[in-house]
């Protein structure tokens, strides 16, 4: 897990922590079932207050990314989790939206885009 906080950022520190963990869960760098560092350990490691890390973890829990249990720490929930699935879907939609929008700009046809997607899909399968 990688977390880099900046005092210069527009985002409050708790939000920076939250967004970075979220990003790493969504892009697969933090796997489901991973036990996150404790709130207090994380606060110490990145040099922020306990209230700050608590707020980040509370938000992640509310948004369905992690589950916190007293004394057991916080665990990254399964991708099968409904809320999380929704988040993935939003992400896929955003990516495709950008792709389709760009394709339209250079007047590609729907079929061409489909074709491109399936090529990329197959290419990734082979890797």
């Amino acid at each position: 897990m990688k977390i880099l906080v900046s005092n210069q950022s527009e985002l409050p520190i708790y939000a920076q922590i939250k967004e970075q963990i979220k990003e790493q869960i969504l892009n697969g760098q933090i796997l489901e079932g991973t036990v996150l560092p404790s709130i207090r350990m994380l606060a110490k490691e990145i040099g922020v207050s306990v209230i700050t890390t608590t707020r980040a973890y509370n938000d992640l829990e509310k948004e369905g990314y992690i589950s916190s249990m007293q004394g057991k720490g916080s665990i990254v929930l399964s991708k099968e989790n409904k809320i999380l699935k929704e988040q993935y879907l939003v992400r896929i939609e955003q990516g495709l939206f950008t792709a389709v929008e760009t394709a339209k700009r250079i007047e590609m046809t729907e079929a061409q885009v489909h074709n491109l997607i399936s090529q990329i899909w197959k290419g990734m399968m082979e890797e």
Partner: protein
Amino acid sequence: MNLLEVKGLYKSYSGFQLHDITFSLPKGYIMGYIGQNGAGKTTTINLITQLSNADKGEVRIDGMTYAQNPISYKEMIGYVGDEFYFPKEFKLKDIRLIMTKFFSTFQVDKFNQLVEEWKLPEKKKIAEYSRGMKVKLMFASVLSRDTKLLILDEATNGLDPVVRNDVLKILQAYIEDGEKSILFSTHILSDLEQIADYIIFINEGKMQFKASKEELIDQYLLIKGAENEINQSLRSKLIGKINGDFGFEAIISADDATEFGSRFVYEKPSIDQIVLHIIKNGEMTYAGN
């Protein structure tokens, strides 16, 4: 569960009064006690550590008052101040001896481990130690005891950035198990700002506010702009306006930002900036009276 409870503390000296200081600090958190020189920070700390007696009010540490059990009460407190409190002629062996005699929970092994970790010279007299080494030595002596409340009175003054950073790590490790708490007083907040959970600000012996640091930072915005851009209604919303030749600076409640609009520059304030403008605002109010 509160580790420290301070209720209605009063103390008056000739020319100075501490008024109705009331706050609590939950277990496992860090609180910054801030104010200008002479605001009453050390007076408050002396009342908590029972170096002096309050005229009125009560202090409880982990539920216990000093009167209930003076020895246990003092054993719970670890204190590091800005002045070094061991005799300058001492070497480490003398400190081991005196700490063992004075404190029942002093663990020599723990002390030796810290001394080694922080590379404090065994053979030198304290007089030859640098300021950073002296501060680390005070921390080593305090952390080798079984304390519950760490009180720091301007302890990080005059430390170089490397040692200060070490101290921050020491403090965060101290509260990591969630059972112990830290109260630190300072007039310069910048270095400790990031790790503080709660902030209390006192001015002229009176509490001005207490809040979680997150709340405080979310609550205010720093605003900069030109004098001729503000009308009467906006002017009344500025807190602690400071005028410069090329514009003014103030803080505003974050909720008012939309009303001000895009003609102004906004920044997230530091705690120091919030405090500066609140003090400034107080002065203006007095002048208005």
